[in-house]
């Protein structure tokens, strides 16, 4: 069990910077993110792209901005729970919040700051009608243990690094591996592409290009995949497993079920302090909405800063808060 002052859901740039502003007021933070690394969209979507509108930086790579933010908040020793999704949020009897993650981690805090951005990054699921039914009955979006596929017939779909790399690994483990891709060229690392071509030539990977999986058949488990291939009639392909690897895309996720006012996939807030309709829960960064909202990193930093002032008063209603510049007070980290 973890206890903290401010529980931040989302370790994107806005969640990270909020740790700094909280630290200045001696409030401790704990961050939860479903991704395995901090940085949110910056690291998941565009780590190598330059950003030009961070005040004071004529240009900075998104990944470097995350690095800098992590360095900036280091003195305040934030806790991190990464690779776990914030699932359930409940009120406790002593007016705190209890968060349970997808892996059962429990975190208590008097204030929750939702900095969830565009939502949790989740695997893109092919729009095949009955695909939900076959999840864990043959359809896997992530490979946890390749041994699961030993001696099985597997069909991987996708054209990027993970589709290529897994096809290569599974070629040694599975009984049969097929790789389905919508065109003939691949975007993965040259090395992997060559290896796949080589394995295809040796008959260890059945490479099906200009094609896509369009249907799934089976009974209680997956049995075959309907393949649509250019210049052919649709045909069925016998498999035990279908592994579609099409990258990640953000989805609002469990936050939608916490009783917050939602409008167009975003949480409505009061711009006075970015509070939501539930006292003690705030929403900052891309996840919130208000008249005039702009989804910019700079705006998220501002929101986090004002929000922390209000959060302090929520936690210590009787204490006076004196405002100090960092140039005056310096940065007094935590022991």
């Amino acid at each position, binding site marked *: 069990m973890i206890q903290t002052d401010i529980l931040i859901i989302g370790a994107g740039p806005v969640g990270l910077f909020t740790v700094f502003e909280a630290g200045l007021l001696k409030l401790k933070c704990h961050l939860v993110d479903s991704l395995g690394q901090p940085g949110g969209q910056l690291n998941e979507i*565009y780590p190598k792209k330059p950003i030009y509108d961070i005040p004071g930086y004529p240009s900075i790579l998104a990944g470097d901005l995350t690095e800098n933010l992590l360095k900036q908040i280091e003195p305040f020793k934030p806790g991190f729970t990464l690779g776990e999704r914030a699932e359930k949020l409940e009120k406790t009897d002593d007016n705190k919040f209890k968060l349970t993650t997808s892996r059962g981690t429990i975190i208590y805090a008097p204030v929750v700051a939702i900095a969830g951005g565009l939502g949790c990054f989740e695997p893109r699921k092919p729009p095949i009608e009955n695909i939900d039914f076959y999840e864990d009955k043959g359809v896997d979006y992530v490979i946890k243990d390749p041994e699961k596929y030993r001696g099985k017939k597997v069909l991987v779909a996708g054209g990027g690094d993970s589709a290529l790399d897994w096809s290569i690994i599974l070629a040694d483990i599975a009984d049969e591996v097929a790789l389905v891709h919508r065109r003939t060229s691949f975007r993965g690392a040259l090395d992997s592409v060559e290896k796949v071509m080589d394995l295809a030539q040796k008959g260890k990977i059945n490479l099906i290009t200009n094609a896509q999986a369009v249907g799934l058949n089976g009974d209680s488990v997956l049995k075959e995949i309907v393949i649509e291939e250019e210049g052919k009639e649709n045909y069925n392909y016998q498999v035990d497993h279908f592994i579609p690897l*099409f990258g990640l895309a953000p989805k609002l996720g469990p936050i939608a079920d916490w009783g917050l006012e939602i409008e167009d996939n975003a949480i409505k807030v009061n711009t006075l302090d970015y509070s939501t309709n539930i006292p003690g829960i705030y929403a900052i960064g891309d996840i919130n909405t208000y008249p005039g909202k702009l989804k910019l990193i700079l705006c998220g930093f501002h929101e986090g800063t004002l929000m922390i002032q209000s959060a302090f008063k929520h936690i210590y209603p009787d204490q006076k808060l004196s405002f100090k510049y960092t140039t005056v007070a310096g940065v007094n980290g935590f022991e």
Partner: protein
Amino acid sequence: MQDNIIQVTVVDREGIEHNLEAPTDMAMNMMEVCKSYELPVEGTCGGMALCASCHVYVLSDHELSEPSEDEENMLDQAFFVKSNSRLGCQIKITEVIDGLIVQLAPVNGE
């Protein structure tokens, strides 16, 4: 044709046609035009060919420039991709696309 304004048609996911005017002198693309008319296009990545939320089918026979490698790579992560699939954000609003007709590709889970 009015100066610097072209006509494009967007067929939405309900099959309704929207006839839109788009300026050629504002460095816009089809994703942005759709958004400015409040059509249901996310444009999550802001037009950098990094999200595929602006996936469209080109229905008219305009000769568009070939998709870049980045665009093809992103289309690899989209679904319902057809031979006339393009990312709307990579279609620049210029005179050559006057009269263009595109259809919004289905969105996952809808």
